[in-house]
């Protein structure tokens, strides 16, 4: 794809974790029996009127504040279309006056991605197509469950600031973490509570004008988002290089077959005849209330990464720091710092051993974790032993000293370590002479022999230091 630049903007829909729907008091619950959470309002029965859910507004403000948006007075519009997933034949959404506008999100690497807007709207019902292999055009008829109709959504629209599939994935990952941190969303892409559409275009490197974009839908994981973007970019470049033109359209990502295809919507289907919803009055957030929400928000991931990175002496964008914050492990770092233990060691252990057993995190208490770090730092346990003890702590719980004793672990240090090294050196006298003469790589041989001779109990870092000191002394 050389010579071409990818331009991506993302539209992310997130369901809000409210008890009830956006405009009626039906339960907002995933997985219930079909059509058991419905009422005259969400079924669009004549004479029913919508009343806005206060908590949904609260969540929308939290999202706006977390994304550095202006939270502004907003109104609702009707988006008219004929499709049975909304029994009213319109969806209530926000159009030219969204509640949140003009913000930004910072990726772990430091890049800021513009947020154009975030607005409230209601989700649609769920359609199932019967016959024709479940494909909409070949189906005999369709069945509709309105439990999801009216569930509150916030749609977050980024500016076209993303330049690769990797950046798009990083953006969604970060946005998801922010949404979860605000409490507004559970962030579950696989259950459909977080849905991503991608606007993708290509342009010659150096060009500042945008190419014609296509909107790609139906990606249900970060992986499929990346695959769909890569496919779509390749398709557009091939098209343009072949002398063709990209047609602005909506395209459907087929995960099983790994390609996008045109959804063949009629042009006029995009004329939604938006007009102000006469049954709802404006939402005018009081600035003092918005300030209160801002003050009450917990620290967002970018801030947490900076804190962890500072404590550990690492870069905020380093993989270990990103992993620790993504998995919500920063309280362990805080506990480590409070106890005066080695926060860098803590981050390494958390990003590796703990991250790989994250399902068992409930077994690990911060105090025991810090105790283990101290044992390793003090040389009571070797690195290999500390890792083993930590895995045992995660899988079965328990205190590190007890587990170490049960394994018969004690780091071989001090005089015992010197004695063990004496034996290894004596057994490999030729190699030692060459090492002393300058063959640095032979250090690995001594360390390996020492590990074997001591059944892994030797403090290898200390042993390496002793070897270098002995060589420097020439003996």
């Amino acid at each position, binding site marked *: 794809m050389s010579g071409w630049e990818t331009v991506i903007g993302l539209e992310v829909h997130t369901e809000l974790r409210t008890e009830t729907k956006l405009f009626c008091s039906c*339960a907002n619950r995933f997985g219930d029996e079909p059509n058991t959470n419905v009422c005259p309002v969400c079924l669009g029965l004549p004479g029913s009127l919508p009343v806005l859910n206060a908590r949904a507004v609260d969540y929308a403000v939290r999202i706006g504040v977390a994304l550095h948006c202006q939270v502004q007075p907003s109104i609702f519009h009707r988006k008219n279309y004929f499709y049975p997933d909304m029994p009213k034949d319109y969806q209530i959404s926000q159009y030219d006056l969204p509640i949140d506008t003009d913000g930004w999100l910072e990726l772990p690497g430091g890049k800021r991605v513009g947020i154009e807007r975030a607005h409230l709207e209601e989700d649609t019902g769920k359609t199932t197509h019967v016959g024709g292999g479940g494909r909409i055009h070949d189906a005999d008829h369709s069945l509709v469950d309105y439990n999801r109709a009216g569930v509150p959504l916030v749609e977050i629209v980024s500016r076209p600031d993303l330049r690769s599939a990797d950046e798009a994935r990083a953006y969604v990952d970060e946005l998801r973490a922010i949404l979860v941190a605000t409490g507004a969303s559970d962030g579950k892409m696989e259950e459909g509570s977080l849905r991503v559409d991608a606007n993708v275009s290509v342009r010659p490197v150096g060009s500042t004008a945008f190419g014609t974009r296509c909107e790609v839908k139906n990606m249900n994981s970060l992986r499929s988002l990346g695959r769909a973007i890569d496919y779509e970019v390749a398709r557009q470049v091939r098209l343009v290089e072949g002398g063709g033109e990209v047609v602005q359209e909506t395209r459907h990502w087929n995960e099983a077959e790994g390609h996008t295809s045109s959804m063949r919507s009629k042009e006029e289907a995009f004329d939604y005849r938006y007009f102000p919803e006469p049954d709802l009055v404006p939402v005018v957030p009081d600035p003092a209330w918005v300030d209160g929400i801002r003050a009450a928000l917990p620290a967002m991931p970018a801030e947490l990464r900076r804190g962890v990175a500072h404590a550990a002496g690492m870069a905020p964008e380093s993989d270990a720091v990103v992993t620790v914050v993504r998995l919500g492990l920063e309280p362990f770092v805080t506990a480590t710092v409070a106890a005066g233990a080695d926060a860098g060691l803590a981050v390494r252990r958390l990003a590796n051993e703990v991250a790989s057993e994250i399902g068992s995190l409930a077994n690990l208490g911060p105090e025991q974790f810090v105790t283990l770090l101290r044992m390793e730092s003090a040389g009571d346990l070797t690195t290999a032993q500390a890792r083993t003890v930590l895995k045992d702590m995660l899988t079965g719980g328990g205190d590190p000293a007890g587990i170490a004793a049960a394994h018969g672990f004690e780091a071989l240090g001090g005089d015992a370590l010197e004695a063990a090294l004496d034996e290894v050196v004596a057994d490999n006298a030729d190699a030692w002479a060459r090492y002393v003469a300058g063959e640095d790589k032979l250090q690995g041989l001594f360390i390996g022999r020492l590990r074997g001779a001591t059944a892994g109990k030797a403090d290898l870092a200390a042993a390496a230091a002793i070897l270098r000191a002995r060589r420097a002394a020439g003996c």
Partner: protein
Amino acid sequence: MAGMAQRITTADVAHVARLARLAVTDEELERFTGQLAAVLDHAADIEALDLGGVPPTAHPLPLANVLREDVARPGLPREEALAAAPAVEDDRFRVPRILGEAP
């Protein structure tokens, strides 16, 4: 969009009718075009005024922030919800084959 002062055409009305899935005859098209033009002419009177400092009216009622507590209440029993449907299958509303994709 064309300015309001510009008269609405039968083509505009036919387009709007199609969007609303309304079948109108040629005779109705002429009649509705005239009626809609009269309504829009009325609105065009406002265009003659200097409204630079007047904020748009979002709603005729002087109200904002009419909100409801987020507390769940039972809705309709399923049998009742489905009772008015022309067709039901598997506890769902059964609808004819859908000819287009969701927007």
